[in-house]
């Protein structure tokens, strides 16, 4: 597992993208029901990146990010991260709270709304992934962290004692009446979990 490069062939990448879009579709349906308005979501791209490059993917180790963090329990434990830039987090909080977008820091109310939306997304993604892979995956309650991207990675690797080498990054876009929000959805499987998930995805396709 250590230092092993994960390279997806075009077929596997298409497959993951397809699964990610089904996840996003289910998540959008849940959000739309909660808010009683149409929210669209799509996943334009998926990549596997080494965990040390997670900060780079969101603008660098010093970049301020708003992150919703979940631990994943079940047969393939790991971490789920939902990262937004501060301005995108504000826009999304505005959509959720039905308020105009404001400037300044995120209020308790905003943070709570983001956590709630994060929970819905995490549950929708994991349910879909569980259905495809037949692996039980259960999210914890959400935590929110607003700080440098590098400090967040410290937190995941050290304080949550996560043993992981790779992150699966799903670029996600939320659209509500022309307002679009860019989010980064990361799945960080513990070592072992990743192989389990990839294998299960492969089997589900070849078997069908």
């Amino acid at each position, binding site marked *: 597992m250590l230092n092993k490069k994960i390279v997806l062939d075009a077929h596997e990448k298409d497959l993951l993208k397809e699964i990610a879009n089904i996840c996003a579709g289910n998540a959008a349906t849940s959000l739309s029901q909660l808010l009683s308005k149409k929210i669209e979501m799509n996943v334009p791209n998926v990549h596997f990146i080494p965990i*040390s490059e997670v*900060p780079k993917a969101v603008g*660098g*180790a*010093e970049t*301020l990010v708003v992150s919703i*963090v979940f*631990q994943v329990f079940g047969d393939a434990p790991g971490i789920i991260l939902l990262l937004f830039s501060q301005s995108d987090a504000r826009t999304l909080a505005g959509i959720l709270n039905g308020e105009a977008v404001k400037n300044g820091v995120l209020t308790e109310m905003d943070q709570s709304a983001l956590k709630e939306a994060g929970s819905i997304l995490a549950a929708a993604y994991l349910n879909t992934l569980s259905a495809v892979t037949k692996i039980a995956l259960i999210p*914890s*309650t959400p*935590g*929110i*962290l607003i*700080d*440098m*991207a*590098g*400090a*967040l*990675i*410290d*937190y995941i*690797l*050290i*304080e*949550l*004692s996560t043993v992981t080498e790779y992150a699966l990054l799903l670029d996600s876009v939320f659209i509500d009446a022309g307002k679009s929000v860019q989010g980064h959805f990361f799945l960080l499987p513990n070592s072992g979990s990743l192989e389990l998930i990839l294998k299960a995805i492969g089997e589900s396709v070849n078997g069908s």
Partner: protein
Amino acid sequence: MDPKEYNPAEEIHVGMADMKVAQAPIVLTSLGLGSCVGIILYYPRTQIGGLAHIMLPDVALVKNRTNRAKFANTAIPDLLEKLEKMGAERRFVKAKIMGGAHMFGFAKTNKVFNVGVRNVEKVKEVLKDLKIRLVAEDVGGSYGRSLYFYLSTGEVRVRTINHGERII
């Protein structure tokens, strides 16, 4: 001089679980430290110094010990040795430490410990054992830090988000 005007070629980045030594006018940097601790050792006479970015306190507590720069009690002696090989005399070497935050805000897991605090404690203990003077520190809190260690002066600029910026 505005720090932004430094030629980027003069900055050397020290990643997580890594260490670097250099001489003035190089700037050693580590970005976005959370519960990690950045330790700088500086020998003013020849303006040489090093930066170690450790993740965990004690090498004895883990199985995978391949990366000595990851742990306080292996990284600091190694860093000192590198400086001594470059001609530094131990009794004039000064240390500064930064980081060791506790990034709460997440539902606590069952472990009632705080890696940031343990990292800082261990770093201080190791410095004491090596008889290196700790001249400044900027540790604790619950926020991330970025470090810029200017080898021409021995100063460290600590940047944070929403918690100010200072030079120690």
